[in-house]
């Protein structure tokens, strides 16, 4: 498990992308989404829970995700989010944008070995 210093705070705007991506596997509640992002990034990405809910709120307002109250695996009441059709399209758009951005930054920074 990485130490606190090794974790990376999310860049502005990338949280939306990660939430949408996580929901691609099916409806999930907020805590589950945060867990999933942390686990899938091998605990590198830190999701600030305080930012998570406003982000969900924003995505819901944009119509990319929908929400309803349900019951979690361990029988707790939780608000479940699911991807909408426009959300799926948005995910595809943002994913390709992100890949292009990441590739471009990678090219600018050059090969990893040359570093340091």
């Amino acid at each position: 498990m990485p130490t606190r210093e090794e974790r990376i705070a999310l860049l502005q705007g990338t949280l939306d992308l990660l939430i949408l991506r996580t929901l691609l596997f099916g409806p999930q509640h907020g805590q589950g989404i945060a867990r999933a992002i942390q686990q899938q990034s091998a605990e590198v990405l830190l999701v600030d829970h305080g930012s998570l809910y406003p982000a969900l709120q924003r995505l819901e307002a944009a119509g990319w995700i929908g929400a309803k109250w349900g019951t979690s695996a361990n029988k707790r009441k939780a608000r479940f989010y699911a991807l909408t059709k426009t959300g799926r399209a948005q995910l595809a758009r943002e994913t390709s944008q992100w890949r292009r951005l990441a590739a471009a930054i990678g090219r600018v920074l050059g090969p990893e070995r040359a570093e340091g």
Partner: protein
Amino acid sequence: MFRRRVRKPEDFAEEIQAHLELEADRLRAEGLDPDDAGAAARRGFGNLASAQERHYESARWLWWDQLRRDTGYAVRVLSRRPGFTSIAVLTLALGIGANALVFSVVNALVLRPLPVAHPEQLVFLESSSGAGQSFPNYRDLCGRNQAFAGLVGYRIAPMELDSDAGAGRIWGYLATGNYFDVLGVAPLMGRFFHPSDDLRLGASPFAVLSYAAWRSRFGGDPGIVGKTIRINRLPYTVVGVAQPDFHGTELFYWPEVWVPMMMQAQIEVGNSWLEERSTSDTWIVGRLKPGVSPAQAETNLNAIAAELAREYPANNEGLQFKLAKPGLIGDFMGGPAKAFTLGVLGLAALVLLAACANLASLVTARAADRQREIAIRLSIGAGRGRVVRQVLTESLVLSLAGGAVGYALAVLLSRALTQWRAPMDFPVQFNVNPDWRVFLFAFAAAIAAGVLFGSAPAWRASRTDSNAVLKGAPTGGGRQRLATRDLLVVVQVALCFVLVSACLLSVRGLQRALNMRLGFDPRHVSVVAFDLGLAGYTEEQGRDFQRRAQERLAQLPGVASAAFANSLPLSIDQSHTTVFPGDKSGLRPSDGRWATFYQVSPGYFTTMATSLFAGRDFTWGDDRKSPRVAIVNVAFARQVLNTANPVGKYFRHGPGGGLVQVIGMAEDGKYESLTERPRAVVFLPMIQSYNTTTTLIARSARPETQTVAEMREAVGLLDPEMPLYGTGSLPQMLGFAFFPAQSAALALGAFGVLAIMLAVTGIHGIVAYAVARRVREIGIRIAVGACPSQVLRLILAKIAALVLAGSVIGLALSLAAGQLLASVVYGASPRDPLVLSGVAATMILLGVLSSWAPTWRALRIDPMAALRYE
């Protein structure tokens, strides 16, 4: 279903609670001490309150909450300044009220459909020769068209009704049997008549009463249906009563009774025209079949018109149809009414604009005083957007309050206007009661006004430099703000100039109309009218009665001369005929000329003070045994006979009519409206051409009321039963002709006064404010020895420049809008020197008046007090 909706803050709090519990569960599962798990989860979450606040701000709740708070604050702020608030609300109320009132008239005349089923399918048939068609033409149109589900023929007709109060003249409709069926209206009581009730001439003695007639003339008798009433002394059975809001198909005319068309000869006694192709007295309204467009219907009608022109060339040559909106007799009244009301609506909008300019400067001045407050708000973290919203909310609260008061005023006034009946024999009445359209209009006007006068101050408030203001920098030094306020003065003065010139133009137009040469002198002439046909007289009895009545009138004390005629110029009842020059043979119908005719007794020209330029007056010798004679006016001589000296020339009535010799030429006058061009008119001797409609006239130096009373008495001595109508002085009876000019002058005059009020208060406010802000400066100037005239110049030079600039712009605008005004007001020319100098004088007066008090205050500033100030 995953739904989207506005979430309540409680819902969000619950979700976060759920998150914390889930997180605690996970931590426990990872082996954390259960007691610490909850706290750890909360730590992991970060700032709870901040998350909730962010949710709150992202939701629409915030918007609503802020609106509520802003409104509450605005109300508190405004109620703390009752002076400012009441002036602002009053200004807006006048502006919005005027607009709502004018709009309710436009709504009634132009927008609101008739209260019948599917009013959009109804059309009025207008033809190239005028509004009316002959009844045989109507029958042919009914039989041959494919475009209409039904065509109704009808005519406005006066009748004599016997009721409990005695015999009296009322106005009603003659209508074909399908009238109510085609309009698709339901009766309040009983039934309406149907085509089966209107089959044979003179055999349909049925009547439908209007609601008002039922209430006022029969006391709302619940058993009226089936009862017999007497119209023109014949019995008619009342079959039904119409709904209160149904007034037939004309917007301006409220009939009291409907009678089947087959009774025409019994209603219009002595003038039976149902079989006459030469009498175009039937108005036609049609209901289009579903799916038929007006253009298709017009094509269909014109094909029939071409057939009719072939079959009856004498009457139908060149016949063509045009469809118009029903309600205003097609373009005859519809055109001018629309142009006038829309023109007035434009002026009303200008008044509102002036009110907005006024308020903008008031609010700007106030906003400048509130700089400190706004600076504090900004410095403790209010966003600029929030400040804009706050100031704008105040403006909207003001404008909505003003709108509410204005709408209430408009409702009251339009109720009064609906109740009001023009002072004439003819039942002219408009239903201008406001409906939802007027309400929406007033609401929209209020919002627009609020945004208009509020947005500039709001924007400026948001740009307050809080640092400078809080440090106590002199306020209002900015060049920008001063420039905007000056601009407002210029706008105000320009708008005021336009409105005042419109107002003066209309007053001048009215004055010209009143002093215009009418072709007769209405002063000192008294009138009493009756109809011998309705009263059951035969022609012989009638002729005898007319002559004896005239003789009695001539003997009344003070009466210089007396006469009678079928109708008088500029009254509602005008008759036309087709005449042909007499010197040609083989005349075709298209050679005919349209002429207005009057049947008059000897002495008519003396009594009316109409000059005879040539020839002689009629005498009692011009009777049925002598050759037929006539007197024509100058226009007739020129247009029909092509001569300046018509005496001795001949003309014909109709292509095959007998020859009539011209024995005299009278001066031109106004006959149908004050704005008409010279019209060909022929006067025929009543002795040679009898008419049952009789208008007795007498010229007397004594007061008209007395003369009228004596005239009534004189007629009553001959026949006490004779129902009289249209009694009064002639100037009074000309109300119909002067009605448009009078209403224009009234409406525009009101706007002019409003505009002047607004401009005076607006300029006064600005000058007063300018003086108040410069108290210190003026004090210093006086202290170092400025004399009063220098102080005066300091204050007035700028105002004078602004008023001048506004006037120049206003002058340019009024000249540009001159065409519009000329169409509304008789003889209006914006280049009229009298009007222009009048407006200029008004503007100067306005400038002086509005800056008087503040300037006076400036002159009396005590330098010591001023310097201690602040």
